């Protein structure tokens, strides 16, 4: 089954590449302005790219929740403090038990290279894209929640009730599991940044750097090469795409 769909996908892609990619924009009768993205080869999931985030806990202000609001707004989720409410990204406050030092940081799906959620998913709904983004294919998610049991970061939420008025770019619905998708729709259309990183930049804190971990010259790679950073639960050997500094 999977083979077949990959085949089709390949055919479609080949045809598509032959036809070339253009950027155009035109108006529809209703007045809605539709834009066609130039994406082609560079915007679709590319195995040469590995998207990642670098989060500097020192620069993250404890009071600021710009990244959370940006994510909620981008993807249309809401957390009102109920235990059943989703939370794609959350602010965690840390206090070192020995030294008493306090920091805060945003925590979201870490987009592991070896994601436990993908290993345990019975149907393969939980999967990793070629560019390292870990996603839930909600078309085949049966809502068993085993991935939520398996995630070391509690990154995933289960949609407990009916949802209306979803964002068109982020379909989500009752009975399936969801998590940070690294703003995959934004990356695919070539925005080159996630909502949280953009919001953090706009807030002036600049605690989140987004970029391609495989590109040695990207800002994120240079920062990682020059300053110490950690992975959360690095004992698990999952090789995370989200790294932290100054925890």
């Amino acid at each position, binding site marked *: 089954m999977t083979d*077949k*769909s*990959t*085949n*089709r*996908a390949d*055919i*479609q*892609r080949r*045809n*598509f590449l032959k*036809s070339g*990619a*253009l950027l*155009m924009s*035109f108006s*529809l*009768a*209703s007045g*809605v*302005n*539709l*834009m*066609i*993205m130039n*994406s*082609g080869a560079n*915007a*679709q*999931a590319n195995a040469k790219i590995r998207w990642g985030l670098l989060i500097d806990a020192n620069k993250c202000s404890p009071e600021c929740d710009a990244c959370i609001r940006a994510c909620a707004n981008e993807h249309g989720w809401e957390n009102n403090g109920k235990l059943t409410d989703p939370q794609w990204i959350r602010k965690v406050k840390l206090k070192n038990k020995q030294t008493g030092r306090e920091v805060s940081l945003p925590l979201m799906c870490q987009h592991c290279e070896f994601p436990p959620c993908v290993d345990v998913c019975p149907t393969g709904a939980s*999967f990793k*894209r*070629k*560019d390292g983004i870990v*996603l839930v*294919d*909600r*078309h085949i998610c049966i809502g068993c929640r085993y991935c939520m049991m398996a995630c070391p970061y509690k990154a995933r939420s289960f949609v407990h009730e*009916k*949802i*209306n*008025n*979803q*964002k*068109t*770019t982020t*379909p*989500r*619905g*009752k*009975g*399936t599991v969801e998590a940070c998708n690294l703003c*995959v*729709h934004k*990356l*695919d*259309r070539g925005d080159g940044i996630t909502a949280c990183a953009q919001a953090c930049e706009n807030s002036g804190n600049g605690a989140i750097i987004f970029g391609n971990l495989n590109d040695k010259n990207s800002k994120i790679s240079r920062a990682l090469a020059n300053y110490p950073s950690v992975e959360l639960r690095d004992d698990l050997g999952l090789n995370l795409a989200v790294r932290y500094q100054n925890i």
Partner: protein
Amino acid sequence: MRVLLGALLIFIFFANSLIAEDNFPLIPKATGKPHPEGNEFIRINHMDLLRHDRDLVVKEGIRNIDNSLAQCVTCHVVRDENNEPVTYESEEYFCRVCHDYVAVKLDCFTCHNSVPSAEVSISLFRDENAPFERLMAYLEEKDNDR
């Protein structure tokens, strides 16, 4: 037993008249350009096209496809008396008109938004020349797979 068979025959007879042509659902008019492949083609194949392209989007991140659901929703919007788009919860919703008629469950809109959104970039029939040929190639491929 004979009574049962008789009842069944009578039922079939009437059921037949029930699906006579004048009882077909009234399909709401769409805005935008017509499907280059023809409506009949889309009526028969829309589910395969949607499934094929959803896999492209979700798995491969190829989003400038011909048959995105957001695109369907944009052109096939049905508006109520206040000129507001109706959601799939209304019986007048474009997809539901036929889906209710043939009693096929509509599953897209438990997750996807059923009304058009202005904020989104969606591809319209981007490649004006080739989509039909490509569709044919795809469907041939599908036939070969079977």
